[in-house]
Every structure is written in C-alpha cells, then in structure tokens.
C-alpha cells in the first residue's frame, strides 16, 4: 500500500486552489491533519470549507495544489481510500424503508473489514432501534444512523460535516461522547462545524478559513497568537461605568486594582478575569472589515 507522507500525517494540503469560472473558492490553502487527532475546520459560510472537504473526500477535483489523504490522492476516488474513509454528509437521505440493522448490514458488506453491526449500533447509541425503519426515527436518531453508516467500514479517517446541527443540548452531549470514544479508538476525525463551543470541546487543533485561505491554525487554546489570548480584567467602577483592561500579567494588575479599592474602602462590583473563548477569537479573525459603502 503506497504511503507517501510520513506515517503520522493523515491529511496534507499544500497550496490548494479551486476555481469556479472567475471565482476562486479556495485560494492557496494549506494545512496538515495528524493521525489520531480531531481537527476542526471553522469558517463563515462561503469561506471554502465545504469545497475543501469535498476535495478531500474525492467528490470534487482541485484546480491546483497538492493533496494527500492517508497517503493517497483523493482525486479519482481510489477504492483503497474509500475503504478507509467514512463520510457523514450534511444532508443525505437514508433508505426510508430499511431498518437500522438492515441498512448497516448492507453497507457493512461493501467494506473489506467492517465493524460489527451491533457494536456500531451501540457506539452511536441506537440500541433498541435496530428493527425500526429509518422513516420512524427522530431527527437526532437519523443523524446517529448517518454516523453509524460512516463508521461501519471501521475507517481510519472520518469526515463529519456539521454533525450536531439541529440537536438538542442533551443529544449534542451524547454525540460529543461518541466522537470522543472514536478518538480514543485512534480514528482521525475532520470536523466541520458552526458551533465554536463544539470545536473548543472536541478539537485537538483547528484551522479557521476565510476567503479560501487559512487565517489561523492551532489548538483551540493557542490559536490566534499570544496577544489574542490576553486576559481581560473587568469590573464596574464607582460611577457605574464598565471598565476592562487586557493584560499579559493579570495577577499584577489584579493586585494593583484590588489594592487601590481596598485602600479606598470600595467594593469592585462585577470583578471578573476572563480569557477570550475560541468564539471571540473566531469573530475577531473572520469579522468583515468595515465596507466602503
């Protein structure tokens, strides 16, 4: 089996371009996904996320650039690759009149070394629904069957496109647990999501895409560089105005303001030390510049 890139690289994208006529949807994108990690792809609608993922999945041809997935070129969809990759599409129907067990058995037969059907049902939490036809499943249960169909081939790499859209908070937690257990089984996961808390919760590393380029890449904790992660100390002053100071040294700053307040016999209402969440950094990075209109 040809394994070109180093064995701890699952996906390598170098200077990827994709144009549709005049418009360039992907404009020189590069990133790397390591084996066994959960990699989050974030970005506003139209940033080129879907195009990028569909190129990696083999659904689309690229205009230029180098792409390797599990050591293979996804273009032309080699069967070797399809046997090792699982895909959860955003909207894809299930066979309405097949039961959960029948659907999984059918798809299992397409793979050379599939997961056990009952084991997969348990992995996504569909126990008790084995004999229910897809049409009788709730929206959340359908998405779980979707996920099960992507996992039935026991893939090394799984693409999850908006896996929890439309879930209630409890179902989301359950889906997160499934994704974590997949990760602990050594599966590499590429996650596209609009929910930044989801990326923060699940992803080992994220890339933020805007206008077809990667604008930031790193762990959810470090992304955007050190200045993006400065602590913010905020409180309400004696005139009722909200104060906020960004600092690299929150301990020193806190000592100073609390000292002053104590000396003056004042209480600092609403005193808070916070760090920007992935969402704050994401919004900073992807915010449209003020237009020229």
């Amino acid at each position, binding site marked *: 089996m040809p394994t070109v890139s180093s064995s701890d690289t699952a996906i390598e994208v170098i200077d990827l371009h994709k144009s549709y006529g005049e418009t360039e949807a992907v404009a020189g994108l590069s990133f790397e996904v390591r084996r066994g990690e959960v990699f989050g792809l974030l970005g506003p609608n139209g940033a080129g996320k879907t195009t990028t993922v569909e190129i990696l999945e083999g*659904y689309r041809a690229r205009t230029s650039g180098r792409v390797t997935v599990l050591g293979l070129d996804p273009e032309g969809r080699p*069967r070797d690759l*399809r046997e090792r*990759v699982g895909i959860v599409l955003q*909207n*894809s129907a299930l066979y309405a009149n*097949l039961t959960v067990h*029948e659907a999984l058995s059918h798809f299992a*037969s397409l793979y*050379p070394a599939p997961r056990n059907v009952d084991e997969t049902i348990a992995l996504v939490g569909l126990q008790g629904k084995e004999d229910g036809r897809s049409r009788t499943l709730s929206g959340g249960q359908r998405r779980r069957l979707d996920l099960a169909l992507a996992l039935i081939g026991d893939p090394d790499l799984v693409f999850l496109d908006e896996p929890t859209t439309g879930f209630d908070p409890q179902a989301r937690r359950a889906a997160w647990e499934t994704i974590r257990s997949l990760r602990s089984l050594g599966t590499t996961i590429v996650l596209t999501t609009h929910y930044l808390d989801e990326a923060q919760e699940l992803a080992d590393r994220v890339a933020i895409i805007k206008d077809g380029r990667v604008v930031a890449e790193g762990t959810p904790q470090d992304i955007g560089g050190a200045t993006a992660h400065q602590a913010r100390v905020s409180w309400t002053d004696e005139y009722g105005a909200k104060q906020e100071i960004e600092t690299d040294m929150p301990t020193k700053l806190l000592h100073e303001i609390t000292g002053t307040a104590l000396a003056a016999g004042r209480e600092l209402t609403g005193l808070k030390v916070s760090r920007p969440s992935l969402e704050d950094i994401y919004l900073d990075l992807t915010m449209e510049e003020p237009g020229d209109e």
Partner: protein
Amino acid sequence: MSNFAQQQAPHRRSAVTLAWRQYRLERKLFWRNPSAAFFNLMLPLLLLLLFGAVFAGNKKYVDVIVPGIAGMGVMASTFSALAFNLTFLREQGVLKRVRGTPMPPASYLSGLLANAVTNAVIQITVVILVARFGFGVGWPKNWIELGIFLAVGVATFGALGVAFSHAIPNFDAAPAYVNAIFLPVIFISGVFYDTQTAPAFLKEIAQILPLTHLIDGLSAAMVSGKAISTQLGSLAVLLAWGAVGGVLAVRGFSWDERGN
C-alpha cells in the same frame, strides 16, 4: 491499523457480488413501497383488463392491445421508473452517499438496472398470462424472438431513462417531465390502436419512436409469429436509440444534486 492493506485484500467482494447485493436491496425496497409496487405492476394490468373487457369480442383489437400494453409495461418499468428514481436518489443525496463508499459505480447502477428489468419481466409475464387465460389469446408464438425484443427493449429504454434523468431539474418536476414524454409516446406509438389506421403525420412520427418498434417486435413474437428476419428494421431502430441513450446516460451522469 498500520498493516490495514494486508488484512483487507482477501475480504474485498467482487464487483459482481456487490451488484447482486444492490439488486437484492432494490428488490426488498421495491416490495416495501406498496404504492409504487402497485402502480408499477397493476396499472398495465388494469388497462389491459379494461380495454380487453370493452373489446373482448373483437379478436383483432385484442391482438393489438396485448403487445401494446406489454410494450408500455417495458417503457414504464425501465424508462419512467429509472428517470424518476434517479432524480429522487440524486436529490436526496443517496447517490452521493453511495459514491462515498467502496461500492463500484458500475455495480451500483447494474443493481438498479437489474431491478428495473425484473419489473419489466414481471409485467410481461402478467400480460401474457392475462391474455392467455382472460381473453383466450394463444401463448406467444416465438419465445426466442420475444426474449430478444424484451432484452433490447429494456436496454434501450433503461439507457434512455438514465439519460432523461439528467434533463429533469428536480424531483418535484419529475412527474411532469416523465409524463410529458411517456403519455404522448404511448399514444402515438400505438399502444391502444393499430398505427396503420392512424393519420399520416402521426404514422410518420410513430415510425421514429422506439416504442412503436418494440411493440411491432413484441407483436410479431407474441401474436403474428412473423420471423425475426422480418423485424430487423425495428431491431435496428431500437438499437440506434439505445446507443444514443447509452452515450447520453454515461456522459451526463451526475452523482450530486444540480446547482452545486
């Protein structure tokens, strides 16, 4: 997981096995959708019974309607069903899902086509039985000729159905698109009357359409017993349509919804 290649190779199923599995799945799904199954199998039967009952005493007319309904059944179960189903499967993302699995595209499409062919065979069988026992029409005169026209007919109309699905913009429009072709074609091609009695301009259009030639061939095989050597013209027209349909079916094929 590192030596995945070594463990997987022996278990990879052949393209033929996978086509067979897809075919079995399609059969199961067909019977689990009773309204579609009914429409597919009962409509030709109903038409045959109605027309047969009205013209029961008129042997000449019954001889026209039996191969006519048989030909219509072939077109409905291949051309209409495939154009309809593929539009649905494409719009629903089922084709895209299948495209993401190791299923070879040829195996998948073979399974779908074989399913349509099975329905055509069931329909012809029902028509033959009803004609034989309901209206006293004899058994088909030439089974080999019948088999040849059936095979060429399903191949031609199957290819045309796949090709036509590319022209249908979305599933909501599918019934209108399919019937806009199906209904005029079954009337002009002489499903319900002998084309020889039609006005000249309709006769000329009918001579171009593949269904006319399928019905002529089926009529020769089932009713008149004319040898296949007299039907080579019809066979040639069918094959020509099949070739055009085949090329268009392959060239225009899209796994993904249009507009993406």
